């Protein structure tokens, strides 16, 4: 499914709310600080759309809470913020190498046919890819279930697309504004210098 207009609106409102929190600090003139502020508020806005129902949104909020706790608390109203921030992270899955090694020890006696080997290789490849997917999706390491992982990925992709769409249109508008401004400023300057 594609991002719906209501999702975009909600995201925009929440993002605005987050940016307003930064407004008093408008004298953080460094570009990188502003960028960070924008990105963080956008991320929290995106995650808060899901209201804590999905694993990735909780993980994302917790991740941004480590960077800017204040922002997260302000953006998420009330009780939800407390539960989301203070909730302990689920147990990380056991280290894959250890699991793999123990499996290999157990498997050593098995006889392998050619077909089995191919299948085993395919399975290994798929495992690698799912691990890669876990690294990309926030909170992926905590999803022990493959089914859950794919569901979360679906939701995450849709939310990312919403975020990108909204941000892109804002950026286009802002850049158009600044272009125009620069143009008129130039014209004005020229006119003044002439006259």
């Amino acid at each position, binding site marked *: *499914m594609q991002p719906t207009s209501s999702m975009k609106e909600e995201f925009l409102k929440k993002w605005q709310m987050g940016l307003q929190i*930064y407004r008093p600090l408008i004298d953080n003139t460094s570009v990188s600080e502003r960028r960070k502020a924008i990105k963080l508020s956008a991320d929290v806005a995106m995650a808060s759309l899901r209201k804590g129902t999905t694993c990735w949104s909780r993980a994302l909020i917790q991740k941004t809470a480590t960077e800017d706790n204040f922002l997260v608390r302000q953006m998420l109203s009330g009780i939800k913020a407390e539960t989301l921030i203070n909730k302990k992270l689920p147990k990380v899955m056991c280290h894959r190498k250890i699991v793999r090694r123990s499996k290999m020890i157990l498997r050593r006696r098995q006889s392998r046919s050619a077909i089995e080997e191919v299948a085993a290789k395919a399975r290994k490849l798929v*495992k690698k890819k799912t691990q890669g997917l876990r690294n990309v999706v926030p909170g992926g390491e905590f999803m022990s279930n493959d089914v859950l992982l794919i569901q979360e*990925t679906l939701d995450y*992709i849709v939310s*990312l697309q919403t975020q990108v769409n909204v*941000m892109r249109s*804002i950026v286009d*508008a802002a850049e158009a504004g600044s272009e125009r401004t620069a143009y008129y400023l130039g014209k004005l300057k020229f006119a003044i210098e002439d006259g």
Partner: protein
Amino acid sequence: MDLSGRFGARSGDGVPFREAAALESLHIGGGEEFRQMVPPENAGGFTALLELPPTQAVELLHSSSSSASQATTLHSLGTLSFPSNPLLMERASRFSVIATDNQQNGNVSGETTTTSSVPSNEHIKTEPAETETCDQAAVEKQSNRCGKRKELDKKVKSSTKKKNKSSEENEKLPYVHVRARRGQATDSHSLAERARREKINARMKLLQELVPGCDKIQGTALVLDEIINHVQSLQRQVEMLSMRLASVNPRIDFNLDTILASENGSLMDGSFNGATMQLAWPLQVMETEQSYHHRQLQQPPSQQWPFDGLNQPVWGREENQDHGNDHNNLMVGSTSLHPNQVKMEL
């Protein structure tokens, strides 16, 4: 956990009473019950069920009314002609009682459309708009299959391990049943593996539809590759956009939003308000869906400046929007000279 359906880790902790608890939790109305299907401990619940010898498992299924309600959800929705099997009749009757107080009427009706529209027994096409509803429906169907499969496996010993529709049920239902090979009927591990694989394949199909360019690809690993690339590219785009926004005139990105926030309420009806252009360099921000795409796809932003020539409806619609005309066009003027003033202009 791997996609190839490693079942071993789960089977150890499956317990009958957990299964019953899981099933009961499903009976609770509302979206929560399907969410509870998703967490690992409940997903393990069904596989635990499969671990039991078939007879015990069927008894469990008989006894839990919630599973009956689940299983019959699809039945009563579809144009099912029930067999004379007393078990299924019982379930149908139970469902007709349960369905009325089932809060998930939305999901149920969503499933109606999906089940009736999908003739194949393989995959669930998710029509509902929300992912959550889709997933709930998908999860529910998967759980139904698990329940149904156990019963039918008891009765049938076929020689091929393939997906079949049960002959006892209506052909229209997208049930996937796995008939075990001879001598493997009690191998609940492979059955459970197959169940998990079905779930995963269904969701992978959804992902393939979402990510552009994934339809043509064969093979799970490559599809996963594409998905990872897509997610990474989206994340990178977010970074780039935030960098661009930050490098623009600092006042604009923060004022823009106050402006949007203040004007949002007044324009909610979508009416075009006439206003005069007061300053030479207003900034326009469109909130309509058309604009979101057209700004990127069509005219470069500078061409929006002839203000009287602005006809937003003229801009084509490339997105299918349900609320295409419901949203306000928001035009905001802000200048570098008057950062705090808002100019409304249409």
